[in-house]
């Protein structure tokens, strides 16, 4: 039999609701931590590094540049990066905690932080640009909040799923483990 995960411990049995004993193979801690760290790094790139570079890019155009074009965003980048780091850490923690009953609560907390992250962008989703010339000026305001709000749909669904999982782990401890970590 091939092990599902590298150097995984031997299968464990857990009682299912219909009284059967189902086997599952808990992933080894090194494997859990490795994937957890990788997920954290990926999330960190997406939720913190990208906003940081956007902030740096906008910094080149803010104020009066030599080209006469000025670009300004209302986004609170520092808060966004901080929240992105928290979100990334929670993403890794969620993966590491998946075999435990902390999975649901961490997942739910991550979803709450993600809602905050999305709302922080949506409430400040305005990009302004102004071009000045000798006989006048043109200012452009780009509002993309409608786009950002749409991402709340997926996050809200994930939040409900997390609540159900947290409840399941309290009501039927270990019930989901044979399905999350089946013995192959």
């Amino acid at each position: 039999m091939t092990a599902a995960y590298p150097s995984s411990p031997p299968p464990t049995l857990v009682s299912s609701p219909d009284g059967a004993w189902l086997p599952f193979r808990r992933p080894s801690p090194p494997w859990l931590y490795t994937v957890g760290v990788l997920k954290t790094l990926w999330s960190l790139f997406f939720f913190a590094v990208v906003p940081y570079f956007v902030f740096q890019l906008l910094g080149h155009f803010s104020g009066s540049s030599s080209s006469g074009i000025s670009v300004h965003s209302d986004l609170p980048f520092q808060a966004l990066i901080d929240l992105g780091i928290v979100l990334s850490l929670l993403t890794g923690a969620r993966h590491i905690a998946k075999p435990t009953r902390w999975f649901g609560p961490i997942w739910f907390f991550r979803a709450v932080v993600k809602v905050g992250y999305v709302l922080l962008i949506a409430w400040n989703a305005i990009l302004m640009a102004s071009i000045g010339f000798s006989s006048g000026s043109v200012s452009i305001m780009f509002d993309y909040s409608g786009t950002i709000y749409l991402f709340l749909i997926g996050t809200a669904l994930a939040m409900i799923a997390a609540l159900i999982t947290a409840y399941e782990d309290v009501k039927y401890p270990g019930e989901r483990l044979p399905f999350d970590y089946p013995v192959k």
Partner: protein
Amino acid sequence: MNTYYPYGRPPKPRLYRISRYLRWASVLATVLVFVYIVLAIFSLVVYHPTFTFYGSGSGGGSPFGSCANQTRGGSGSANACGFNVTNPGWFPLTLQAAFSIHEVNGPLLAHGSTPLVTIAPSTSENVALSLEFLALPSNNSTYVASGWINGSYASLFSLTITISLNGKFSFSPGTPVVTHARGGLSNPAFVKVPSSGPPLNHGDQCGNLQSPMRRSYALSERMGR
């Protein structure tokens, strides 16, 4: 205890299934949102809306040009000038525009606006431009023309462009032409100002300027004498 499973494996618990379906729905919703945004951007870039000015008067090509030389009350009705918007894209486009011209440290000379219009995908629509001229400019006066246009596409993006232009009126009024000579103090007259002047000369409601005139064009007063 041995339990018989008809499909060779135990059925997934109910809560587990609900949670998993919700998670799939969450991922699917996020993917669909991405697809929707990408389609909207693609549609906007490839099939971008086009604008052409229309008006029954001569000198088309600009809203003022096409509105020039129209007669008030005749062809210069509410829809006499404006612009035609074609939306060949896949998503609705909502538009509204307004503008004003005022003298620096002086009166508001003119203003205009369009109604809030939604142009359905793959259609085109005439957007009427309502113009109102309130006063004539003084010669050698400085004016500020401000334009504002707001458009939103697919209910996702909204773009607001504000244009502010400074200029100077410099023209010789010449001899006003009386087109409706019912002079007198209580009977306002209609005058036509040469259309070679600044945009304001092109008239009220896409037509001629209406008295009672202010400043040096108080023709009705002169005719009453």
